[in-house]
């Protein structure tokens, strides 16, 4: 036992928070016990005191260093009985001769046992809370299913809300705004049972490529539900249905739609009539005259998920299920892009800058060279949690020769040139970096680069814009990359400092 006691507790057990007290003793024994190994775990109670509360004290055991102390402690505990919540507390009489040893033993039993058990219990509790929540949802859904079964209410979807499009000749259009920022729209119906929605588009672009990016999340919890990446070409004039993989369940919440575009000028997203309630008008971080007190034109449906309302011509299924993560869309500010550094890997040294920032166009020029890889690095711009990056690239000269463009995310600690060298050598990017792959580009056709990370970035990273030649010539291959859009997923896990830290 001596050997055990000599071992440092911190090496073997989880130490309990030192604020909490688990052992009670009488004030009469204070002198004898205060300096003992129990010192930090002890709280002294006064049998004459009228105190009827305990703060951060969980009396698991009482100790007495004297008979009188034991009697006092019993009296004090009797008085504390009015607190009601405390269990019966055994009292151990510590012998004078072995007080230090016995006190140390009690301390280790309490601290060690409780510490280990509490960690286990914490995990069990977390799991239990989660299971209870899931059970609630299951019960509610089961009942809904049963009701539907009894009512033979299987078919179709029901429109629960509709706000018709309204075209104002003074409208400027939302295309530029969608590329620059995102538009938010709250649903004026509860999330419960919502299985899809429809957005109204008009004027599909001719010769423009890109994607409409739509995400749906809950306002109150910030949890994401799903994301749709819809190529411009798939959008039809009129109503377009976005289907959810499963109807929203659980608590009733407010649904929020976020829409943006990546690529050329997107199809025109229709707005509806003006309304009085500004909270439900479409919003964007960037001010836009068309959004003044106007929601989008949209419809909301409940019913069987995946079923397209018969009157609607198409259906988009989600590209990604976000399932509980919070989604945040962010753009790279100009001041960061301005700091782009040339990290190209090439033996050629041309007489013009191949990598630079274009002030008026907020774009990074990354002119390919006939040999090697041209690369521009923007340091520390990719936030932790980033799961997807998109950007648009164009060769801005009618006679520009074709090339290939790509993006890479590199850890701050990595050797960027080394990783570019690995790419140049035809190998894959190192496991610590993310590479979009090469996308071929010609002067006639701008391209959109989209790549999703297998797992969201764990920490801040560098963004590297890459280009290389795909033919013998790179004449006039003024490749510009712009409209960087990054999407961050935030897990809802505790990420804060403790109060006593």
């Amino acid at each position, binding site marked *: 036992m001596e050997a055990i006691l000599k071992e440092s507790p911190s090496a073997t057990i989880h130490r309990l928070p030192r604020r909490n007290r688990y052992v009670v003793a009488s004030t009469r024994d204070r002198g004898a016990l205060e300096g003992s190994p129990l010192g930090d775990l002890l709280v002294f109670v006064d049998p004459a005191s009228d105190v009827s509360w305990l703060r951060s004290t969980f009396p698991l055991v009482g100790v007495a260093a004297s008979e009188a102390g034991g009697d006092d402690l019993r009296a004090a505990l009797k008085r504390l009985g009015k607190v009601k919540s405390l269990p019966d507390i055994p009292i151990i009489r510590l012998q004078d001769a072995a007080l230090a040893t016995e006190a140390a033993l009690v301390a280790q039993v309490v601290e060690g046992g409780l510490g280990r058990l509490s960690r286990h*219990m914490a995990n069990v509790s977390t799991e239990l809370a989660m299971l209870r929540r899931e059970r609630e949802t299951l019960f509610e859904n089961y009942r809904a299913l049963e009701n539907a079964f009894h009512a033979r209410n299987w078919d179709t979807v029901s429109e629960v809300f509709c706000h018709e499009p309204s075209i104002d000749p003074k409208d400027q259009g939302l295309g530029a705004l969608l590329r620059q920022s995102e538009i938010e729209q709250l649903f004026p119906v509860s999330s419960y049972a919502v299985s899809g929605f429809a957005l109204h588009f008009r004027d599909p672009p001719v010769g423009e490529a890109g994607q409409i990016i739509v995400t749906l999340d809950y306002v*109150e919890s910030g949890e994401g539900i799903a994301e749709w990446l819809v190529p411009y070409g798939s959008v039809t004039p009129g109503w377009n249905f976005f289907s959810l993989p499963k109807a929203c369940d659980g608590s009733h919440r407010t649904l929020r739609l976020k829409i943006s575009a990546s690529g050329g000028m997107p199809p025109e997203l229709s707005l509806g009539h003006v309304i009085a309630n500004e*909270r439900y008008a479409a919003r964007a971080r960037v001010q836009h005259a068309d959004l003044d007190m106007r929601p989008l034109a949209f419809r909301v449906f409940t019913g069987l998920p995946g079923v397209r309302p018969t009157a609607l011509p198409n259906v988009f299924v989600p590209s990604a299920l976000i399932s509980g993560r919070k989604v945040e869309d962010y753009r790279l500010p100009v001041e960061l892009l301005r700091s782009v550094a040339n990290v190209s890997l090439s033996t050629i040294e041309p007489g013009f800058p191949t990598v630079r920032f274009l002030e008026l166009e907020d774009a990074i020029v990354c002119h390919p060279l006939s040999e090697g890889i041209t690369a521009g690095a923007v340091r520390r711009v990719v936030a932790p949690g980033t799961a997807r990056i998109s950007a648009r690239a164009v060769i801005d000269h009618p006679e520009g020769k074709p090339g290939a463009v790509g993006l890479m995310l590199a850890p701050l600690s990595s050797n960027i040139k080394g990783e570019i060298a690995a790419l140049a050598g035809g190998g894959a990017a190192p496991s610590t970096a993310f590479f979009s792959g090469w996308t071929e580009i010609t002067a006639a056709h701008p391209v959109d680069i989209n790549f999703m990370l297998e797992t969201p970035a764990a920490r801040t990273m560098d963004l590297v814009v890459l280009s290389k030649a795909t033919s013998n010539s790179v004449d006039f291959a003024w490749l510009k990359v712009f409209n960087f859009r990054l999407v961050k997923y935030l897990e809802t896990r*505790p990420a*804060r400092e403790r109060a006593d830290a």
Partner: protein
Amino acid sequence: MREAPQQDLIAIAMPLYGHAALVLEALESALASVTDCRLAIVVSVDGDPRHEVFDQLVFQAAAHPEIRVIFAENAGPGGARNRAIDYILEELPEAKAVYFLDADNRVLPHTIETLYRRLQTSGAGWVYTNIDTFSVNWRAHYGNRYSRLIHCISDNICDTGSMISIDVFRRGVRFDDDRQNGFEDWEFWLSAIEAGFVGEPCHDAAFEYRLRAEGRFKEANRERSTSVSFLRRQHKALFRRPTLVGFEHQEAPRYALIRTGEGALDIFTDPTQPAGAMAIDDAVRAFWGSVGEPDNFHFPPFLAACNSETLKLLARSRLLPNILCHLEKLAEKANVVFVELGNVESERRIDWEVLPSGARPGAADLAFVSTGLIRNVIENSAIDWFSSIGGEQAWPTTARLKVRFPFPKARQRRSLVRPEQALLNLVSAIATSPLRKTAATRWTWRPRRLPSLSELYKVLRTELGGAPVLPLAHNAAKRRTAAVLVPNASFGGAEKVAYAAGRELKRDGFETHLFVLGAGRMDVLDEFDQSFDYVHFWKDGIPAWGETNHFLGQDFITEEHPLDWAGLRGLLSGFDLIVNNHVMAAHPLMAKFRSEGTRTACYLHVVDETALRRPAGQPYAAIAFEHSYDAFLTCSEQLKSYLHSFGVPFGKIFAVPNGPGFSIDAKMQAQVTEARKAGRAEGPLRLLYMGRLDRQKGIDRLHSTLGQLKERGIAYEARAVGGEILSDDPSSSWMARLRNIGVQVSPPVFAAKDIAAHLAWADILVMPSRWEGAPLMIAEAQQLGCVPMATAVGAVDELVIPSQDGILIGNATDAQIVAEMVRAIAALARDRAALTRLAEGSLATAAQRSWSASFADFIAWNRGVAPAAAILSNAATAAPERDGTTAEAGLSVRAVA
């Protein structure tokens, strides 16, 4: 990367009793919070006898250092929360805010962060969410804007699951731990409001409220009326009219006023406070918003239009709050109300008439309409019908409110735009707005739980039990408020005492209000015209006398009597002091006002007599309500003793000796004194009678006295100044009979200078009254050295010291009184030196008499009246303090600019 600043500490306080099996969910949800802040979770175990609680918490606290636990004996939910608050203040002094999470509820991961950020940016005292329950599904939307008015008079709109600034607790706000109070959470918010804090809604966050078929919430609601009464008692100051109207003014203003020729609307409830401004566009949005989402949008329930000059004039009239009450009332009787102003020097007057559809109401100085009517007009496409108010013949029914008062001398600027037209323009703008198309859709998906903001004035009426509610909040100068009630406002002695009381109260710092209840006019008396900051008339439904029951054989009115109780309550509720001067109908209301915090006083002037000489009148009607009054004022020691004999303690009675009804300037005083000292050795004696020519005043005795003097050859000149109620038989007219014996009869005079001229002319004022109180006329005569000769009735003997400053005629049979008067007048006619001595005695007595001295004790007693405290607002959210002390200072500010 930037260095993260020191993270703020948020405390989650969790009272725990009876939820041993659920607390782990609450704790897990709190622990799962995603926030940049540091968290401390303080569990306050409220004597829960289940040891399972201990077992749970010992492990949780061991595993999570941020969990703090207090075990204590049972103190109820309020007590348990207070223990957590005290712990946080003592042990976690750096905490910035406290979030209360009940042990059976759950918080969503981002809620703490979202609420705390909103708390920081809003500067509010607390931030609250809508309610979404689980287990039993229920949802509530509590409005887009926080309203103290709603929170006080409607329902508890904030769950304790709110983020509360630590400042609230540092200010000493705590939960009430009285277990009889089922609404300890509501009570807490009321305390916070009283301490000057306001809430802020946050729709972007939520917590999960566990609702089961039965629970404390249901229990509390079963005892709702008891609990609500408890709240009213605990927070009297919050529920007084000035406080609630102040909230209304800021949060749900009752009136929107279009200034013709200007591009915006004033919105206000209290016309003495700075009004809010609403652009036409905003007005249109508010109108349609209030149609579709009445709990989120407020459009004032009454709409008025006039030009700025009219508004200035009304503000200066001191009648504006009263006019607004009349307009509210008339808007219930007619579709549209027109106000017509008239300049009359000698009186203030309010009359009204309702005209049928198709009438020609003529041009208006102000047009007034209820928003409800506008809504109906638009819904029923009746714009053309409504537009006729701008033409010659109006198809809506109209009411015409005629307001007469002395205009200030300044020249009025004419308006070139008619108020009716301004009203029509706004209605047209609303009707043609594109918002009309979407107004029917409610976009807020959570169900509405609040009353319509535009109908809050009705909820306020219900709360105060009155309608309309006087639109006056606390004055910014924090002056105490006094209401003086009179049944009519002419030149009677009792009224003059009321005016004098008002003047003395005003001099002592009160904001004074004269209420003329049962009449629609008052005569303007220069002497007292500035005694009152506001004048109010309420004529209809208030009888001068009533008989629902008897007290010692005397009539009194109870609340069963059919009269306009709502009107009275709405007008009179919420004053710091009420002095009831003979308004019989007001007695039954005094107990309620007193319980609400008003100090009540009753002035009694005289014991009347019936034709059969039964003592009767106001004193008996008042004594029946002795319990309701804090004080009585009498005009004499005699009446004081009389009241005492009916059980009113002396300590409750202030005898206020009457002073003169007018004052004279120093120059005139010097002239009069000099003339009286010199005496008039020559010429016939000058006798003056002033007063009603009726039996009470002893007009028959006067006639006999003068006849006998004539028969005895005593030279005199006599004047009788006064009016009489004419009967069908002209031969019975006292005027005619007096003229027949050579008396110069003049109609009544009311101006101080005219009364003074008569008294300065006369040697003797003859007052052969059958009964009196303590007539002011005696003091007025003495002031001018005119010797009063009066029958010793009522408290006359307290005003006249025989052979020193007047002559007292013993109260006896008519013949004996006449004989005694003849003898006394004859003696003075012979002995002019004696007359001069009496005149000098009168002047000396008058020099020692003043209203200020008379009211001194009463005024001193009133210094104990604390002004009903105005509720402060959070600095960040408060409307600017209003500094207007009169209507003029409020609404006219922008008009002048």
